[in-house]
C-alpha cells in the first residue's frame, strides 16, 4: 500500500534560519511526487512536481530534491511569509491515469521575525 510520511510535524524557525522538511514515501512505481503549500483557511497551492531520483526544482527560497525513498524541501533564509503547512503527495503508476494523489499529513512551518 502506498504511504507518505512527513517530518517534522511542526517546525519553528527564526527569520533567515535555513532548514529542510522531509517526505518519505513507499509507492508501487513512482509516477510523480508533488509539493503543495497550504495557508490557513485556503486550499493547497501547487509548488513543484519531481519525477526521478536526482531531480531538483527551485522557486524563490524553496528547493525540492528527490531520492528513491524520500524528498526534501529546503528552505533557504526563510521569511515570515513562508509560514504555512507544506504538503507532500505521490502519484503511483496505477493512479497515474486519473492523476490520483496520496497525501502526507504535512509539516506546519512557522517563521518568526
Amino acid at each position, binding site marked *: 500500500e502506498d504511504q*507518505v510520511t512527513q517530518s517534522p510535524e511542526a517546525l519553528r524557525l527564526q527569520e533567515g534560519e535555513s532548514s529542510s522538511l522531509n517526505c518519505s514515501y513507499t509507492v508501487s512505481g513512482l*509516477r*510523480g511526487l*508533488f509539493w*503543495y503549500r497550504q495557508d490557513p*483557511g*485556503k*486550499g*493547497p*497551492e*501547487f509548488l513543484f*512536481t519531481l*519525477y526521478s531520483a536526482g531531480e531538483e526544482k527551485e522557486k524563490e527560497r524553496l528547493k525540492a530534491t528527490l531520492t528513491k525513498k524520500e524528498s526534501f524541501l529546503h528552505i533557504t533564509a526563510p521569511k515570515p511569509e513562508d509560514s504555512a503547512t507544506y*504538503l507532500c*503527495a505521490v*502519484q503511483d503508476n496505477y493512479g*497515474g491515469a*486519473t*492523476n*490520483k*494523489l496520496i*497525501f*502526507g*499529513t*504535512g509539516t506546519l512551518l512557522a517563521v518568526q521575525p
Partner: protein
Amino acid sequence: DAGITQSPRHKVTETGTPVTLRCHQTENHRYMYWYRQDPGHGLRLIHYSYGVKDTDKGEVSDGYSVSRSKTEDFLLTLESATSSQTSVYFCAISEPTRKGQSNQPQHFGDGTRLSIL
C-alpha cells in the same frame, strides 16, 4: 488562481440531515476530485470524476455520493450526515496527463468547513 468555487464555504447542520456541497470550475478540466481533510489524516480522496457522468470511489467513500452532469459542476452529497463527517472538504481539478507530457498537478478550491452536530 485556478477558477474553482466551492459552496457553501461554511455549513452547520444536524445529524441525519442531507447535505450537498458544490464545486464549480471555469477551467474546463476533465478530472474533478473531492477530498476531506482532518487533523492527523491529511487529505483523503472521497470520490473523483474522469468525465461527465463518469465517477469512481476513492479511499473514504462510505456515506458519500457524487454526481457530475456538466463538465463544470461536481456535487458531493451526504445522504444522512453523521458527526464523523464533520470535516473540511476540498474540491480539486486537473487535466489528463497525455503521453510525453509532464504530470498534470491537481489544483484546489478553498474548501467547505462542515460541522455536523
